[in-house]
């Protein structure tokens, strides 16, 4: 039920933002992520953006997993 989907912020006003979810556009609330900027990715649940997705951390995780399978992880 808590399926969160990543969405890209296209436009924002005070309390809502227009986002793109897998090619379709919708309006979501942004009360929980007041600092969100156009161009950010957010995790959307039940009509609200729950969190800003941090791209840098995503890249770092993938690097970590690669190291892990390459055996360079102790």
């Amino acid at each position, binding site marked *: *039920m*808590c*399926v*969160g989907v*990543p969405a*890209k912020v296209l436009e924002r006003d005070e309390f809502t933002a227009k986002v793109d979810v897998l090619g379709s556009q919708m309006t979501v*609330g942004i*009360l*929980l*992520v*007041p600092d969100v900027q156009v161009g950010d*990715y957010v*995790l959307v*649940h*039940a*009509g*609200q953006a*729950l*969190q800003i*997705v*941090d*791209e*840098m*951390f*995503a*890249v*770092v*995780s*993938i690097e*970590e*997993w*690669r190291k*892990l*399978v390459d055996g360079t992880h102790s």
Partner: protein
Amino acid sequence: MEPILKEVQDAGLGQSLLREVIRLADRFKEKYGHPPAYMEVCGSHTHALARTGIKRALKDHVRLISGPGCPVCVTDQKTIDAMIALTEGENRIICTFGDMLRIPGSKGSLLKAKTEGKDIRVVYSPSDSVRIAKENPDNEVIFLGVGFETTIPVLGIALKEAWEDGVKNFSMWVTTKLVEPVVRYLLDSGEAKLDGFLLPGHVSVVLGKNQYSYLVDEYGVPGVISGFEMNEMLSSIYLLIELGLKEEAKIINNYKSVVKDEGNPQALTIMETFFTPNDEAWRGIGVIPKSGLDIREEYRSLNAKIRFPVTVGEPIKTKCRCGEIIRGLVGPEDCPLFGKACTPMKPIGPCMVSSEGSCSAHYKYLRE
């Protein structure tokens, strides 16, 4: 972001991770004499572990136990009956999430009430039901809100909107659940033997990593916060086994791109503002003190339980074993009704109704 998502799903990386997990799990078994056993608390994990084939691929190496992680599955029968009874009143519009519609109550379901002409609407967002209330001033609009910490702030936002806009014909019937009290219950009861927890990604967005310190400090059990893509889950299981081998209990945040150590402060504030701890009844477990949240007294006019009290009798007992399934004691195949009398088309219990329920995930992806 799109390219990152693809890398997260990268099947080649997944295959290598899988081999590493198996290698480590077999070392774990050698060391401790039993395969590592982890509980996924979240229903979305249950579903994703089945769908990606991880559960099947690890079946002989790692025990992955589904826990009480879907709010639909843990809602007790009496509460479902009360929600259905709520549709009886005149001039009511009942709004809820889609998952709730087909859950069988002792007599019928919300879907049955709808086919009998009751005005029951599925909404995507609780805020939509506030809008419906504004558009239908002659009706009472009641939102049936279930959910864990991921959903509770979103329910809170709808309450905030209704309160600030002075919407008088809107109220909410909430039966929300908190993760910590039920995890404590499971660990205290000692029923399910666990080597750690695959911690819920979305609940943790709200709570944050720091909130899980009780697992380490009080129970000495490790946990890894995980996302839902194949590689996210495989690497999280890997990290759990590694902690076990090192005999180290700690919480690792393996979903740093969305989960922060301190959680989401705005979401926590909304929860604080509108809700207060409440004793909640869990299916198959009974009442766990302070294991849910109800609407604060200040906002009693928004609380449908106060505005529209209903009484329902004791529910009829069925052979459904959902209660034991959500405690991690038995699997879907242990239920005599599984795949026979009970299927996703004709569900008997909530674990088959919710797409995140163990029985439904098992039926779709894991039947032998």
